[in-house]
């Protein structure tokens, strides 16, 4: 495989224009931490953005940071950390779950292209909610921009949103401006112990419906909780509620939340261990087992998560745990069969949503469409959008929709 490793936007444009002219498929990647998600791409050429790096703008008081798409996320997070700021959407690191990628662990472009978020997405929004502007090269080999460096911007179509979560199939991102926010002064996590999935879901709903300003809500059933923090939690189920902010506020809200659950057994997890446990939830560490047992990432309404999981487990062996108040379900299929048809039918009968097969062998990913299939007018619209950005179908062809 030939790899092109551009260092300027013009070089990116040249490569894509050449590929479009030749009809030559390009695999587009940053560090490749997520290259094993989606249908395997058949191509002889890779467009490697890892050398298109560098932070180009950072104004903490303006809450704005701009960088080239190939900039390592770790570099950005380190700089933000020095100034007491963060990417509020808490992007997941896929390496524990998938292996792969180099030591630097993912780029800004990859995070936006895959709309990678974490537990705080529930409160603070997804990656796409923090993108203020982009420069990119379309599959036509044309450079364009959208947005800017300000939050309030309704000038023209929001192409930044259109490209977020497009997995490199519409355009190659070259520069991204993101909104950054203050990092919390401190945090604490309350863990309600011993709840079954339905009671946990009700508890999380009550917590999120309170004035506690919960920034993350996850449920680790028995069998999963024991794998967290090196076993420190013990194996009783743990329903986690994170509170972040200024010290006095966190203390007040912790009391408020405890008052919501007078009958519950509640452990209070201090700041350092709270950070550690949420990193493990964020990165799906319970399933980071070095195998390629199929792992699904499912998004449904919070009230439906546990019902869907129950229905699934009555028909196929699976381990599950929940984030986003129960609306994000991580599922590892213990029998080795991804059971895609069953899962997708259950999503339809539980109010809708989507499931993404984030880990599976290449042959399994080729056979089972990893992304939620679309039908009818919606599928046709998506196909038309793809054609408008990449008429010759050279950018990550076949990765999302069926070829």
């Amino acid at each position, binding site marked *: 495989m030939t790899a092109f490793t551009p260092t300027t936007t013009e070089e990116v444009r040249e490569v894509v224009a050449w590929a479009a002219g030749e009809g030559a498929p390009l695999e587009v990647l940053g560090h490749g931490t997520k290259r094993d998600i989606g249908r395997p791409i058949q191509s002889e050429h890779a467009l490697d953005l890892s050398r298109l790096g560098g932070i180009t703008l950072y104004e903490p008081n303006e809450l704005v940071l701009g960088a080239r798409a190939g900039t390592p996320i770790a570099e950005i997070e380190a700089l933000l950390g020095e100034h007491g700021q963060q990417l509020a959407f808490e992007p997941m690191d896929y390496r524990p779950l998938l292996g792969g990628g180099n030591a630097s662990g993912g780029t800004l472009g990859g995070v936006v292209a895959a709309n990678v978020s974490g537990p705080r997405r529930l409160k603070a929004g997804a990656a796409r909610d923090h993108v203020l502007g982009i420069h990119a090269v379309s599959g036509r080999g044309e450079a364009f921009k959208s947005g800017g460096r300000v939050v*309030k911007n309704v000038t023209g179509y929001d192409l930044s949103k259109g490209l977020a979560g497009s997995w490199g199939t519409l355009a190659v991102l070259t520069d991204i401006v993101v909104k950054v926010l203050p990092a919390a002064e401190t945090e604490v996590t309350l863990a309600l112990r011993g709840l079954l999935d339905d009671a946990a879901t009700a508890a999380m709903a009550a917590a999120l419906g309170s004035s506690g300003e919960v920034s993350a809500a996850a449920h680790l059933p028995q069998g999963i909780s024991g794998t967290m923090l090196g076993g420190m939690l013990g194996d009783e189920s743990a329903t986690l509620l994170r509170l972040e902010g200024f010290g006095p506020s966190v203390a007040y809200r912790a009391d408020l939340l405890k008052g919501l659950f007078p009958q519950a057994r509640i452990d209070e997890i201090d700041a350092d261990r709270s950070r550690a446990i949420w990193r493990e939830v964020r990165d799906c560490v319970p399933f980071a087992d070095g195998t390629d047992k199929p792992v699904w990432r499912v998004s449904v309404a919070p009230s439906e998560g546990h019902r869907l999981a129950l229905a699934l487990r009555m028909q196929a062996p699976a381990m599950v745990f929940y984030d986003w108040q129960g609306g994000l379900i991580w599922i590892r299929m213990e029998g080795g069969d991804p059971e895609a048809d069953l899962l997708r039918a259950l999503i339809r009968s539980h109010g809708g949503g989507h499931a993404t097969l984030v880990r599976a062998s290449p042959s399994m990913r080729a056979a089972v469409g990893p992304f939620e299939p679309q039908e009818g007018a919606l599928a046709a619209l998506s196909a038309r959008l793809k054609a408008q950005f990449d008429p010759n179908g050279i950018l990550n062809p076949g990765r999302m929709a069926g070829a």
Partner: protein
Amino acid sequence: MSGLTMPKPDAATLARRAEIVADMRTIVPGEGVVDRVTGMRAFETDGLTAYRQLPLVVVLPETVRQVSRILKYCNERNIRVVPRGAGTSLSGGALPLEDAVLLVMSRFNRILEIDYENRVVVAQPGVTNLGITHAVEAEGFYYAPDPSSQIACSIGGNVAENSGGVHCLKYGLTTNNVLGIEMVLMDGEVIRLGGRHLDSGGYDLLGLMTGSEGLLGVVTEVTVRILKKPETARALLIGFPSSEQAGQCVADIIGAGIIPGGMEMMDRPAIHAAEDFVHAGYPLDCEALLIVELDGPPAEVDHLIGAVEQIAANNGSTVCRISRSEEERLTFWAGRKAAFPAVGRISPDYYCMDGTIPRKELPRVLAGMRDLSEKYALRVANVFHAGDGNLHPLILYDANKPGELEKAEAFGADILRLCVQVGGVLTGEHGVGVEKRDLMGEMFDQADLDQQMRVKCAFDPNHLLNPGKVFPQLRRCAELGRMHVHRGQMPFPDIPRF
């Protein structure tokens, strides 16, 4: 803009008007079709009242099926359609076209479902923004994006414009608070995007639709996020001897890691106009007034109030009042909320602009505006969403004086150019519509505009939805689709490969 060029009306459509009206009556029986001039007058303008145009016919559907049939009918006959919510647009987004069906969504006015467990409301697009909050406030919830027209504007219109409001910095814009929509494409197909779950499973079509100003499809249902109302809210009213100091105070508040619920600034002319009107007790000897609102648990709010007070003092504040009651908090806001009518009181007309700038550029932009004010011999007052850099210059003029409207528009266009020059954008909240359409070239080059128009081609290839808005040029989709292909060498052959 006074010589506003709109797409030439289609003669064939005009000639067939009677037939089209009759066919619309078949699709929407009863009172849902208005074709007499007296009835259509109510719809000939939106919030940009300088521009008026009677449509071909006004149609007010009640069901999704009717919307689908109307669009399909128009698509098959090449008839243009202008969608309309409540008609509060300040940029002419709902300005009719002589040969277009004006599709009014106001009869879609029901809240369909309130789901407290998942914290969403499912509403029809004609429900007002404030109507959503009213539906859930008894349980202590609210819908966060709060444009100042919220008592009248529709949630469907909010989606079309990606509306904002005072609380955007902390709570986001419409696009950050909408979880799903049902919409009808120009060919009549009904599709659903999102729902009660988070994120899209495919392309973020919902993100593209939000803020698309009625050009990509017609929204027929909206699912929005509702939030628990903060336990308390308190405000500070802070006066400064200069806008530089006020601006630095804003920067320091953000730099201290504080994200206020709202942060608004007014300049001297705006302060005086507001005080003369509502007597809220604003200090009259300040160059800039800052209203900072902090919301959340009492412990947090009290802590932050103290911090902001100190930051204000460090920046030379001459006045700093802290609200001690809900009534006092509302009094602080009274002047700011009345700023536009207050300015309307001291001038026969005013033209409200909307641009966004990086916050730190405010003193420079205000100075630039003072120069422009002299150049055009028109007064200007400024209201500024200090939290997110969205600026509302209010240009005072008298439409009865020949040439003053044109001068006001030219002044406004120069302000927007200045916003773009300092790294900002043409519009933060009001949308492009017709008002800023011809300034799009200030921000985007042809390649940028072409790529946006290609998105349009995916949704509405016949260019029938809301033509003449947002984009200065109509380019045929076939033309946009042409690829200039250069077959040839592999790019940069010297670079080693592996």
